[in-house]
Each structure stands twice: as C-alpha cells, then as structure tokens.
C-alpha cells in the first residue's frame, strides 16, 4: 500500500465533524489552490444559427457544455486534488443559465463554484472580472482553456496573465507541480517545449493534458454531493467591452463535390494541378 496522500488524510480527518473546521483551516495553509475558469459553449454537434437579423446566436435547442479545453484542465485539477491534495474551485463569468454547467463541474469533483454575475460581453470583460477576483482571492494555479470553441477567441488567459502580472503557459499538454515551481510542456507549431516556471501560474489547457478516457461523467453520488457544494454568485465590477459583434454571416454554400473514378488518378492530379492550382 502506498503512503496515504494529503487528500486521503484530509478526507479521513474530516470525517470527525468537530475537527473538520480546524483541519480545513490547517490544510488551507499548505494545500495548493487551483482555480479553473470555465466557459459554457454549445455542444460540438450543435447547429449554428442566428436570429434577430443575424445579430444574436440562436440558442434554441442548443445544449451547453463545459468548454472541452476547460474540461481537460478541470480533469487535471481533480487529479492534483486526489493525488497530492488541492482545493479546486471553478469560476464562470456569466449569467444564471450557466449554473447547471457549474453543477456538473462540482459533480465531477470541484469543491466550489463561483459565478461572477454579468453578461460575458467579450474577452476583456471576462478577463477584468477574473483578474479582479484573483486580486482578492489568490490561487497558486489558474487553469483556463486554450480557446473557447464557440467564439474561438484564445484571449482570456493571456489578458489575465498581463493584468495580474503572472506567468502564462499556453497550449499546455503536461503539467507537474513541485512546491512553488511548475514544469509545463507547451505544444508549439511542429514541436514541444518544456518550461520551468514559478507559481502562481495560469495555463491554457488543451487535449493531451489528460487522456480522453480520463474525462469523467458525473455519477449519482457526485450529482447528489454537488447539490450540497457552494455555488457563490459574486457581483461584478464595472468593466467595459473593447469589442462588439455587429452581426454574423454564414459561409457561402459550397459547390457539389467533383467525383473522380478510383481508377483515374491522373484526372485527380490534373484537376488539382490545373483547375484548383494547388499542386
């Protein structure tokens, strides 16, 4: 049997109700605190349509989920919690419609959810809110996604890093923490880079940080527990958007595919060369 982890010890001690408060206090002193920033996005199979003269995304019949890049990060955070001990909070900037998604994050293992109650008008507003929250509530590790798969901004974590003047590692595919330093592997175009960096740190997480089958599906017990866990709604600070979407457009419809018989490869090469001009 391995040595019990801090987390197991913590859980064991916490079963003693009268000691609980005391131990939570003690463990808060030396367990890592992780904040996972979550954006709620349309499920990947959603039909993308717009309404009100193409100015607003039509969410009719759309199911919202935790942004996949954030889910990889959250799963790694829960891994830290279970293997070495950590407190894992999730944070969303947005409106009450996101609460079920936050409950899902609690059901798969986060300890507390925070929702900063304001429309997420753009990345600048979101980053202002997150940065402001971090000033009053410091964390050792902040996990965001490389990008949200709806608006594909890839902006929030970098903005937060600059505002809070902390280190940022984007497209992070491996993360180890030892005391107050992190070793993070960053995927770049055509390679990987291992970076050593001091905490506090914000990462942009993506697939690879955990494996696909490490992702968790909430079970009954988790869902029940999530109901008891805190979901704090925090008042937003004032902040101004720096960008605004005027309207949306759909790409022009595509011409039908040109089919080429499997035994006429020459024709394909000819078309690619002389018609499409890509060879």
């Amino acid at each position, binding site marked *: 049997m391995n040595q019990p982890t801090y987390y197991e010890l913590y859980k064991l001690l916490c079963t003693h109700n009268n000691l609980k408060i005391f131990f939570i206090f003690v463990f808060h002193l030396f367990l890592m605190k992780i904040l996972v920033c979550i954006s709620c996005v*349309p499920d*990947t*199979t959603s039909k*993308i349509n717009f309404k009100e003269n193409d100015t607003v995304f039509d969410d009719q019949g759309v199911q919202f989920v935790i942004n996949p*890049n954030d889910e990889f990060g959250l799963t790694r955070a829960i891994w830290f919690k279970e293997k070495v001990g950590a407190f894992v909070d999730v944070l969303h900037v947005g409106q009450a419609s996101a609460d079920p998604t936050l409950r899902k994050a609690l059901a798969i293992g986060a300890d507390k959810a925070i929702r900063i109650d304001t429309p997420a008008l753009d990345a*600048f507003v979101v980053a202002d809110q997150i940065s402001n929250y971090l000033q009053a509530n410091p964390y050792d590790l902040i996990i965001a996604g490389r*990008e949200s*798969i*709806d*608006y*594909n901004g*890839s*902006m929030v*974590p*970098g*903005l937060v*890093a*600059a505002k809070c003047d*902390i*280190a*940022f*590692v*984007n*497209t992070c595919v491996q993360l180890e923490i030892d005391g107050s330093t992190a*070793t*993070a592997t960053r995927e*770049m*175009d*055509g*390679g*990987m*880079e*291992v970076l*050593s*960096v*001091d905490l506090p740190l914000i990462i*942009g997480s993506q697939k690879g940080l955990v494996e*696909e089958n490490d992702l968790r599906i909430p079970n009954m017990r988790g869902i029940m527990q999530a109901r008891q866990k805190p979901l704090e709604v925090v008042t937003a600070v004032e902040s*101004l958007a*720096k*960008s*605004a*979407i*005027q*309207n*949306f*457009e*759909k*790409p022009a419809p595509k011409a039908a*595919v*040109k*089919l*080429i018989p*499997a035994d006429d*490869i020459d024709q*394909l090469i000819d078309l*690619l060369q002389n018609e*499409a001009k*890509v*060879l």
Partner: protein
Amino acid sequence: MSILLFAESQQGKLKKGSTELSSYGFALAKQQNTTFTIVTINCEDADQLANYGASKLINLKMETKHFEAHAYATALAEIATKEDAKIILIGSSADAKYMGGILAGKLQAGYVTNVVGLPTSNDPLTVKRSVFSNKAFANTTLAGAINIIGLSNNVHEEISQDSSTTVEQQDVQTTAKCTQASLEQSEGKATIADADVVVSGGRGLKGPENWGLIEDLADVLGAATACSKPVSDMGWRPHSEHVGQTGKPVATNLYIAVGISGAIQHLAGVNASKIKVVINTDPEAPFFKAADYGIVGDAFEVLPKLTEKLKARA
C-alpha cells in the same frame, strides 16, 4: 498613427507566414492612409521583408534566444508605444496566439483573432473574423485606443512591392517569466500550422502499421501529416496530429482526408482549407458534402497509386 507588424522568426529565420502578413500590412496601411513598420526579433534575414512596402524595418536584438511570450510581449508593447502604433498586426501561429493576449493586456488594447480580411470599415474599426470553428463569421468592431489584429493563415495574397524600407537594429532588455528546460522540434518537416498541403488519415486506415501510406503521400507532396481524433485517442498517432474542432485547426491550400468520415467536429476544424480532397470507400460519408474533389475508393488501393503517379510527375 501608424501600423506595427510583428513578423515571426524561428532560429533566426523568418517564418513562412511573414510574407503574407507583410502583404496584408501594406494593403492595410494603404487603406488606412498611413505607413507601416515591420518588427522582427532576433531575426537574421529580416531584410527579406524589405520589398513589401514597409517604411521601416526594426530588428530587435534580445538576450533570450528563443521565443518567450512574456519577454516578446514586453518588447513589442514598448516598441508599439515608441512608434505610436494604433494598429498592431500579428499572425495566427501558436506563438502569436500565445503572446497576443499578453500584449493586449499590457497595452490595454482591443484585440481580435482569426481575422479573415481587411477591415470593412474604419470608424469604428470593423473586421470580419471566423467564429464557431469556421461555421460562421462575425463582423466585429474594435474600441481600443490601440487595436491588435490577429490574421488567419492563408487569407491574403502575397504581393511584393518596390519600396525604400530602412532597416534598423535595436537592443532591448526584457525579463522572461518562463525558463526553457528543453525543446523538441521536428527539423525540416512541414508542420500542420504552415504546410501548404496536409495529408490526414482516419480510422479507415485500420491501424498505425498502415501509416506508411499516409507518410509516403505526404513525402512526395512536402506535406504535413494529420489525423482524426479517434486515431490519436487510440494512440495510433500523437495528439499533436489531431485536427478538428478540439484539435489543431487546419487552414491550408490542400487538405487530403483519407478514411475520415467527416464528422461535424472534424469538418469544423479543417473547413478553412482552400481545397479539400476526400478518399473514402463509403459514398455516403459526410465528408463528400464538404469536399471539392472526391474518390469513392479503398485507401489501400488509391494511396499507393496516387503516391506513385505524383512521384513520377516530380
């Protein structure tokens, strides 16, 4: 008012996208009735950009030899202020997207990524960007005193200009926040981010032992190799080759999909490619609806023939 463009380099050499970005920079400067300045960092062949219409080319010499996002962002923020830049242009590489947010935060600048063309209006500055993984575009206005435009790959024509660009060197001191412990870079191989052609394989290839077929075709085309999500999940190929909505985006000239069904999440990530070719045994595979050219056929027969013929042609 001026425009500042950051042209990336790697190991001292300009990256491929820098000429497209510079061509866009020239067109933008003309549209905005102003001049533009190109900035490079630790670049040895920056003078190659001297005939793209910039009025000035500044090469910053920095102690950190490799890319470090915080140091680069600090240096660019400084030079942008010094040059009184109102628009900063950057690309869409992993490094650019890494650094862009930090730069915007430092300058309190407006910022948009995945921009697909020149601004459609100047007051307020309005650009079209791709959203929902290429399933839509959003016309977006920017309200920063300074604004950063992140240009998508492969959206602007490359045009060189006769120009009298002056070239300067400047030393900068900046502090990095991350220390590079090791670097693993595939030398001389095309990457998904900047290859003109990407050859991608799906579950239809049956197993990792058959990837030679994909690699051989990629080799004759000087292409990068990619794969669908299940292929990387099963460990047939590394995660870094996974393309699609939750993997790498592909915006290349020619995307060849072999044994890939064309699920909505896959198409979302590759649709920005100019020409798409599909090879699949199933004529009902959804990829045929998204492709420009298609062969209904068995990859194991079609690929060797295609590779052979392309080799003979070369």
